[in-house]
């Protein structure tokens, strides 16, 4: 199976005057279609930096990122934007809905950016799918946090992305709402066969993925499959 995301020796260094700070050091991993992966680690470990580099939101100082067979390294910011538009979906911790657009208009944005201007029915279907059939014309300020994140999920899936990056998707939600959102996220992901990369502090959420990459000080300290580990520990326990 082809890798959807291939990360090789990825390094990110920030320059501050004469001092340089390496926040990510020689990170490598691959993800195939349909994989689900959590990146975990303490604050400042480089999780979000890694997510940004994988999604082509930033340029690495060393190493490479290949997303859907496109090496992002030599691409300009606008070329990377085209790759994102074709293959990537996002879910953010603070939802990042556009406050001046209604729920349905927010969902339509990625498709419209693809040049598909007549996607209202698709957007409606997605909003129905996340349980917001009566919230089409509501503005973000008129929605609760959970509802806003569900709109963000619908927006993330409208272009049927090959890979979805989620940054602390439940970080701004209470546990009950968070659980509901996570259920929807994994369901949509499964249905669409999308590769999922999520950054989280929440180990319970991380354990729902089939791979967990643990970062510390910008380096990968472990790369494991929690289900296999759980199963191994259960077998070992027997």
């Amino acid at each position, binding site marked *: 199976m082809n890798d959807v995301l291939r990360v090789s020796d990825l390094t990110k260094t920030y320059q501050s005057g004469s001092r340089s700070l390496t926040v990510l050091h020689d990170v490598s991993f691959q993800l195939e279609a349909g994989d689900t992966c959590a990146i975990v680690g303490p604050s400042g470990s480089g999780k*979000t930096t890694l*997510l*940004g580099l994988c*999604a082509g*939101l*930033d340029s690495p100082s060393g190493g490479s990122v290949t997303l859907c067979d496109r090496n992002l390294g030599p691409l300009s*910011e*606008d070329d990377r*934007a*085209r790759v*994102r*538009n*074709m293959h*990537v979906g*996002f879910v*953010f911790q*603070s939802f*990042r809905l*556009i*406050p*001046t*657009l209604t729920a349905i*208009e927010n969902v339509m*944005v*990625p498709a*419209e*950016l*693809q*040049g598909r*201007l007549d996607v209202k029915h698709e957007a409606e279907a997605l909003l129905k799918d996340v349980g917001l059939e009566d919230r089409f014309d509501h503005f973000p*300020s008129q929605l609760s*946090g959970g509802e806003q994140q569900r709109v963000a999920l619908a*927006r993330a899936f409208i272009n049927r992305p090959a890979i979805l990056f989620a*940054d602390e998707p439940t970080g701004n939600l209470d546990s009950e709402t968070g659980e509901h959102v996570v259920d929807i996220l994994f369901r949509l992901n499964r249905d669409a066969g999308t590769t999922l990369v999520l950054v989280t502090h929440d180990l319970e959420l991380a354990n729902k993925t089939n791979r967990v990459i643990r970062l510390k000080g910008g380096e990968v300290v472990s790369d494991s499959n929690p289900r296999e580990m759980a199963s191994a520990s259960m077998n070992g326990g027997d």
Partner: protein
Amino acid sequence: MEATNMQRWMFRFARRDTRGNRGRLALFVSSMVLGVAALVSINSFGDNLRTAIDAEAQTLLGADMSLESSKPFSDNVESIVDSLGGIQSRRTSFSSMAYFPRTASSRLVTVRGNEAGYPFYGAIETDPPEAAEQYLSGDGALVDGTLMQQYGVVVGDSVKIGRSMYRVEGRLLQTPRESAAIMLFSPRIYVPLARVDTTLLAMGSRADYEVYFRFEDERDVEATAEPLRESLQEERVGIDTVEEERENWDEALTNLYRFLGLVGFTALLLGSLGVASSISVYVRQRVQTIAVLRCYGASTWSTVGVYLMQALGMGLFGALAGSVVGVSIQTLIPIILGDFLPVDVSFNISWPAVFMGSGIGLGVTILFALLPLLSLRNVSPLAALRSGVDTTALEKGWMWWATAAVVGLGTTGFAMIQAPTPLMGLSYAGGILVVFLLLAATAKGVMWLLVRRPPIRTSYTIKQGIANLHRPNNQTLMMVLALGLGTFLVTTMLISEQTLLGQITVAGAEERPNLIFFDIQPDQVDELIATVEQTGLPVMEDVPIVTMRIQSVKGLSVDEMRADSTVRTSWAHRREYRSTYRDRLTDSETLLEGEFVGAHSGSGPIPVSVEVGVASELEVMIGDQIVFDIQGIPVETEVASLREVDWRRMQTNFFVVFPDGTLDNAPATHVVMTRADSEEASALVQGAVIRSQPNVSSIDISLVLSVFDAIFSRIGFVARFMALFSISTGLIVLAGAVLISRFQRIEESVLLKTLGASRKTVLRIMSVEYLVLGLVSSATGVLLSVIAGWCIARFVFATELILAPGAILTIMGVVIGLTLIIGHFNSRGVYDRSALEVLRSET
């Protein structure tokens, strides 16, 4: 994405993104509305004026052609007049005293002795209308309406001019070739030419002799006039045709409305800066939205394009609103400028002016908006992941500089086109740039100072209010620019006005002469002095004046010099000189070079003293020879000294002074000066003189002051009307600036209230902020206007700066007051918001 789909998306998104912000955007853009309105109204008015002048060209001259001379026509000229044929009407004009017996008042006026027929085109407007014809049939006179009002003269009264008595038949309301402003300088009285007291036209008195023609045949007037010009010029006779008159008025009025257009353009520039500043803050508030769009694949230019479309929409709205306002206020301009216009201007919408004004407004707005929009290229999609990634800090790359250069060149180019001369336009653009830079430097300097030297030993409210001036997203720079420029314009006009009026007041103060009698014949001097002294007034000066022209300079005749294109001639070669003779310098004169010769009885050239400015024009130095023509007799002179003259002194000053006794036999008139300490004393002596020597004219300096005052109040009104555009624009920019930082203020206000500050404390903090802003802006504007006023006084009026501290402090007070009112009006509700509300709107 296909280009058309991309454009459709950009348009769709730009429209959606304005939701909830349309009121705010409309306010931002309204700062350019007045600038566009000023341009549209003035240019539209200019087009209407040109149409009116074209349509009424013949009325402007009142005839097909005219000849004019300051001497009675020679036989040669008379034969030319005869040969021209057509219907002719003659007019003789001169200055004289008019005496109104019923009110026992007198006034120096311009008397026009008219024959029947003139004007051949248009009409003399009078009240009652029939008076325009009636006055010619007997001993009638038409008197300027304003003069009649001032002196309490009514129809049916008598007026005495020289030895002739006339009956006032009506008020003179409007006449060809004369605007109300000209009438203010010298009121007109029309009398029949045949009834003019010819002794008033005696030698030495200034008079103009004119003949007007109406040609009933289909002759080409220009072709008729052209071959006559040279021979008439030799006779010092001017020739004027309808076409020339039209061109003269057209040029003068085009300069006037172009200048007003420049003032309007300043308001537009200020408004555009306001738009740019508002957009700068507005797009900073859009960073998260843009970052999300970038995450989902929006290209750099498509995001810039979205907000450029919004700016375009704002610009279009502003241009449209500005055009509507401009067309509406266009009706006011003829009322404001009415006194300066020779024709009635009707109201018509000039579409070229509307398109030009709105086009310039749109263009300038887009260009100014582009500067902050370029920073959007730097918004990183990472900002969606991490709060606090501010990538909108403007890196001034080549594109920014290129845009700034287009803005600068466009502004300068427009100023050069709009100004009466390209040099004036360039100076204007340079001046505005300097003022903008100085205001900006002041704002930056104040912020720099407040950051480094914050007030420590003062109350919390003052510290907080002052800190608001340099916090992130502050609008200090824009507010100082907007309010400072408005204050600068208004105060500069006030200072210029005060300086000029003040000089005249000073000139007439202390123990200096303030009443001048002139056109006194030599045999009248003793009697006049006796009359003055009988009324108890002192005779302070008796100065003889001899009229002359230059025949040759350094052996080369003026005619030869004028014929030779390699030799420079100027007004100094052509003018008529009114010289005197005396044995000493006066206190307004300073000897610069050579020796002042007070007496001369020897043979050879007469040693004369020449004023340094005119010597420079004539290119003469000590020892150079000048031959003057005095009533046809050549008088050889030699430059013996050069003098500097203080022309501001209200006394008789001369370009050329002869030694005492050298012109005793030349035909002279005298000027006698006295001082009257009250209006009554002035009226008494003038009345006594006019009764005994009616040809003698007089000027009372208090009258000159009142005329200047009237002229300035009219010019000042026009200037203030134009400055109003800038002031109003400044206030709108201020309102926009306050509104744009409203959310931030609400947050701060809530935070302060949560931490225990009362509503009153929040209110005080804002008051301190607006107070300091108003103070800094108005003080900077006033300071710059004092510098500009000094430059104007020194280099334009060649006088000393006079300030009116009371008026200047009033302007500052008004600006500070308006800043406080508008600041608080747009912040209303900020103090009353609850913390919960803010938290909700944040999520």
